[in-house]
C-alpha cells in the first residue's frame, strides 16, 4: 500500500502545472461503523467487533471526462475492539486501519455526487496477540459513497459524505488455526469536511 501511495505522489508531483490546476483535494473527519470481524463458536457464540471509529479521510481527484473524475482516497481509522460472549465483553486493545482506494466520481443531481472505487485496506494492531498474533493483514476493498457539496467561499466547498465499503477479513493466525474462508465485513462511514479545487 505504501508503494502505491508513493507512486501516486510521484505521478502527481511530475504532472504539469495545467494538470495540477485541475486537481481537487478534500479532507474530512467523521466516524466509521463496522460489522463484526469474526463470529466464532466455542460453546457459545463469540463475536469480535470494532467500536465506532474516529475517521480521517483525504482525497484527490482529476477530471477524466466532462462529467467524471478519477480519484484517490485514503481513509485512516483508530479504534478499540472487543470480544463479546453472552453477558461478558473483553476489551482487546487498539486497532488501526488505513485504506487507499482508486475510483470514479460523478454527478447525481444539484449538489450531490457519487463515487465508487476499489483498493487495499490494512489492519495494524497495537499489540500482536489473539487473532493478530502473527501480525496485521492487508485485504482488498470495494466501496461506494454519496457526497453533498455546498460552496462556502471561493474555491472552497463544505463536503458531507456517506460511504459504504466491504472486504473479506482473515489473518494469518486465523488461517493457521484452521479457520476457513473469511468474514465479510461491511463498513459505513459518515464524514464532514472541506474540498478545495477547480470547480
Amino acid at each position, binding site marked *: 500500500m505504501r508503494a502505491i501511495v508513493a507512486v501516486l505522489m510521484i505521478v502527481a508531483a511530475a504532472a504539469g502545472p495545467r494538470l495540477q490546476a485541475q486537481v481537487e483535494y478534500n479532507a474530512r473527519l467523521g466516524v466509521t461503523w463496522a460489522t463484526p470481524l469474526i463470529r466464532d463458536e466455542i460453546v457459545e457464540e463469540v463475536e469480535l467487533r470494532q467500536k465506532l471509529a474516529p475517521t480521517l479521510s483525504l482525497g484527490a481527484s482529476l477530471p477524466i471526462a466532462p462529467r467524471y473524475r478519477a480519484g484517490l482516497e485514503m481513509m485512516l481509522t483508530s479504534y478499540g475492539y472487543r*470480544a463479546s460472549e453472552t453477558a461478558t465483553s473483553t476489551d482487546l486493545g487498539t486497532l488501526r486501519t488505513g485504506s487507499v482506494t482508486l475510483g470514479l466520481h460523478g454527478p447525481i443531481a444539484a449538489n450531490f455526487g457519487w463515487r465508487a472505487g476499489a483498493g487495499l485496506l490494512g489492519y495494524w494492531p497495537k499489540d500482536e*496477540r489473539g487473532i493478530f498474533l502473527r501480525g496485521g493483514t492487508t485485504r482488498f476493498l470495494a466501496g461506494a459513497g454519496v457526497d453533498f457539496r455546498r460552496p462556502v467561499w471561493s474555491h472552497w466547498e463544505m463536503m458531507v459524505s456517506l460511504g459504504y465499503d466491504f472486504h473479506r477479513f482473515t489473518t494469518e493466525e486465523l488461517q493457521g488455526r484452521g479457520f476457513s474462508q473469511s468474514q465479510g465485513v461491511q463498513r459505513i462511514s459518515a464524514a464532514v469536511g472541506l474540498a478545495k479545487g477547480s470547480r
Partner: protein
Amino acid sequence: MRSRQRLLGLVTGSVLVACADIAAPSRGDAYEWRRLQGTSSGVDTLSFHWAGADLPVRFWAEDSLNLPAHVQGGIGRWEAVFLYGEFSGVVVSDSSTADVIVTTGIAPKGGFSIARLESGFAPECQGATDIELSSNGQQILRPIRVYVDPRFAPGSPGVDDCMALTTTHELGHALGIFTHSPDPEDIMYADPAVSALSRRDRSTAELAYHTEPTLTIAPR
C-alpha cells in the same frame, strides 16, 4: 433488460459475498480438563478458569534454576492459545501479591484440603501443582502453588529443557486444566515430552475458558 438482470445479479452476488461468515474450526479434539472427585454422595466435577476481572494473573517465580524465564515462557505459550483475551499473566516481584507461586523443590507432603496434580515421570525433572480449596469446597484459595524440581544436578543434559516444559505443563494446571491428556503429543500429558502446545491443548484450553466453572477463586 438483460443488462439490468446482470447488474441485479452482480449486486446480489456482491451482497452475499459481503455477508458470508468465516468458518471456525472444530474444537472437538479437546480432552477432558475437569477433575472428577468422589464424594460421599457420588461424583463432583471440579472446573475452574480465571475470570476476566482476575486478569492479568500474577505469577511469582523463585529466582533459581532459570525459573523466572521458564515461567515467563510458559505464560507466553498459554496466552498465545487464546484468540479473545481470555487469559493473560504477568510475573511480579512480590510473592505476597501473587496469585500463583512457582518454586523449585519437591511439593511438601499433603495433609490439607488440596487437589494435587503431579507430573513426576520425566527422568530429568518433576513438577506438581497444589490447589487448595476452601472448607466448603467452592473456592480456590490464593496462591496456587507450583513446584518444579530437577532430578539431576542443574546443568546436566536435558534438565533445563525439562524444567521449561514442566513449568509450562504445571502452569496449565494453574490455568484450570485439572487433568492430564491421554496423548503423549500434548504438553498436558502426564509425562510431558513436547515443548510446544498441541492443537488439542489449545482446543482444551479454549473450551475450559468458555465453559461455566464450578469453582471460583477466593477474593484477594
